């Protein structure tokens, strides 16, 4: 019995240790008080430091911590069924603003915005259909979807590609054009290239020949398509559409040609392609998130109205990184002026919102 007693003793000691530790308790700031401004972020299934959507959005939240004195926290989602629970973790603690990342959380965010009318919600990359219908009954004054004009981002990198090509041939490899943002990237790219050189030869292929499950997760197809474009003489290729696009970007870089990434600065997410990554067509998540958080704070203090509905963020193109020396100064100047014109609306992409 001695051995068993020893074992029990260990258990008792550890348990006592744990119980004693429980006594002080963690002192968390009380977010339900009006003087504290708290912002919580719920990730899509994925990590906070994904160097992509979650991380860029979190940086916007961190900016609010620095500039608005907000108390900020995040929860990483490990299973889609926890979306509601994770949002509620913040809402029940009296958080003022809750940011949810990615379209996967769209419905959970709408449901939470209905359930917690005093909390402001920011849905990143979540298109709000209720905001464009005629029914006023389903409007949510406390929810803003942060969306982006992908056609403008595509336009910028299309113009750059047209200026950087030596063969006069450029390519684009995309997921299915049935998803409007993908189509806008692709057609914006085409429009931007034609804006620089109306006679440029452009190969654009959408991965429409497979189901939705495969269209964004087919790096082999993306690589093969990019390779065949390089074989046909293309020396700049834009890859857009999840892993399919990544496959194209990596293959292009490995062939020594200029590759262009998508959504966030893929210099950091695709190290294999980084040395030959010319730029990325970026959705500027960080400033967009910060602007909406600031708007929520102002609205809370009666200094303005929260831009409920669809909030159009800004796009941009990523730094040239390793290839900075290969980009001529006049191209850089031209890109800056195009960017300004696209931002202030004097230069229109003329790409409709979805494939007609």
């Amino acid at each position: 019995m001695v051995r068993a007693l020893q074992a029990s003793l260990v258990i008792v000691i550890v348990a006592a240790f744990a119980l004693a530790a429980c006594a002080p308790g963690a002192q968390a700031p009380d977010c339900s008080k009006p003087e504290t401004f708290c912002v919580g972020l719920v990730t899509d299934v994925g990590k906070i430091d994904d160097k992509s959507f979650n991380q860029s959005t979190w940086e916007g939240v961190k900016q609010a911590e620095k500039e608005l004195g907000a108390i900020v926290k995040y929860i990483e989602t490990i299973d889609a069924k926890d979306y509601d629970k994770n949002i509620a973790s913040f809402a029940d603690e009296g958080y003022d603003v809750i940011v949810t990342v990615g379209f996967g959380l769209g419905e959970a965010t709408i449901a939470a915005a209905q359930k917690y009318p005093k909390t402001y919600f920011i849905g990143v990359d979540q298109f709000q259909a209720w905001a464009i219908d005629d029914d006023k009954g389903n409007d949510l004054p406390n929810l803003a979807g942060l969306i982006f004009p992908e056609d403008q981002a595509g336009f910028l990198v299309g113009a750059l590609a047209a200026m950087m090509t030596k063969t006069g041939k450029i390519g684009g490899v995309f997921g299915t054009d049935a998803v409007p943002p993908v189509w806008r990237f692709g057609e914006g790219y085409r429009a931007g290239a034609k804006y620089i050189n109306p006679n440029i030869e452009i190969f654009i292929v959408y991965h429409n020949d497979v189901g939705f499950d495969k269209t964004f997760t087919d790096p082999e197809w993306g690589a093969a398509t990019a390779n065949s474009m390089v074989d046909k003489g293309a020396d700049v290729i834009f890859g857009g559409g999840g892993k399919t696009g990544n496959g194209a970007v990596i293959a292009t870089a490995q062939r020594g040609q200029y590759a262009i990434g998508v959504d966030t600065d893929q210099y950091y997410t695709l190290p294999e392609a980084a040395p030959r990554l010319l730029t990325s067509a970026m959705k500027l998540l960080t400033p967009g998130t910060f602007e909406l958080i600031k708007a929520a704070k102002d609205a809370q203090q009666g200094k303005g109205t929260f831009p409920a509905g669809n909030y159009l963020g800004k796009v941009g193109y990523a730094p040239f990184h390793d290839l900075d020396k290969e980009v001529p100064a006049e191209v850089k100047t031209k890109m800056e002026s195009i960017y300004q014109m696209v931002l202030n609306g004097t230069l229109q992409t003329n790409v409709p919102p979805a494939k007609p």
Partner: protein
Amino acid sequence: MTSSQSETTLSPTPFLRFLQLAFEAMRVPILAVLTAMIVGGGVIALAGGNPLAAYIGLLQGAFGSAKALSETTVWATPYMFAGLAVALAFKGGLFNIGAEGQLAFGAVATAWVGYALPARLGMDLPAAVHLPLAIGAGVLVGALWAAIPGALKAYTGAHEVINTIMMNYIALNLVSYLLNGPMKDPNPLNVIARTPLIAETARIPPIVEGLRLHWGFPLALGVAALVWWLLWKTTLGFEIRTVGANMAAARYAGIHVKRVLIITMALSGALAGLAGVIEVTALNYRHELGFSIGYGFDAIAIALLGKTHPAGVILAALLFGAMRNGATRMQFLTQIPVDIISVIQALILLFVAADAIIRFLYRLRVRETRMILTRGWGG
């Protein structure tokens, strides 16, 4: 293995003997959990976190309120069904790594019956018909899917480990195709790979309004009791355990080994299917690709931690459910990544599997006979 009974002798009183044996059976898993928590605490501290604050958050998140308890059962329920599935197969000497695929197929079959069958039949079904049909479909599909590697093992000797892994790929990719294609929610705004919502008549209601605790949880406890009864109180259960212990002896004893192998896998698949069925009918009301990822694999750890005994599986599933559920609160309070939970779970499994470490650390003697998991190649 010979037992060393030099220090403790079994009590003659049946009840005390039961407690004694239960304690001895549970001490390695319990010590494994504690050791893993201590080592995990070291990992948290190394990463710059406060282990005590983390564990307080974990406890609060798992048990700190009615809602937390309810969410723990929500997590534990599929773990219980899937853990029972793997444990039952272990008892029959089979290693069912395919629970994940069986679970996914069960969920899809149930979802289809739930949303599409009334329209196909052109009539509304009463709940008394619709719900049993929906549950039955998922259980049956899970059983059939698992019976295939069972039959391959019985008639060709193909090892079930390989076949169940391979069939996971088939199942998961097929489910991905179905959810993205023919079974996708046709709402034009929907971009997510998921089915439409199932009809009200195919849903299991929550036990308490406002909490997600559902009838699947008591059902899992009941099914665990049923599995125990099957294994130890029926002829079939005896046959399963005998085949698991020694296939040649079972054959010599006149047991139809091929039949038992197939039945064992089918029962295991039915239980795994039930895990998916309950997620669809009682919790999510649809199947979606992001739901229920990895239960079938966690189930292997749960079955091992529970020493392949139904009661042990229930406890292990509650533990894993509590850890997964409490992780959110832990992260909320301390901003320690939820991955630390996976680290601790892996450590628990390591200590349970390599129980010599625990026995050495705590100077435990061995009484229990070795647990039979699965036979080697071509056994």
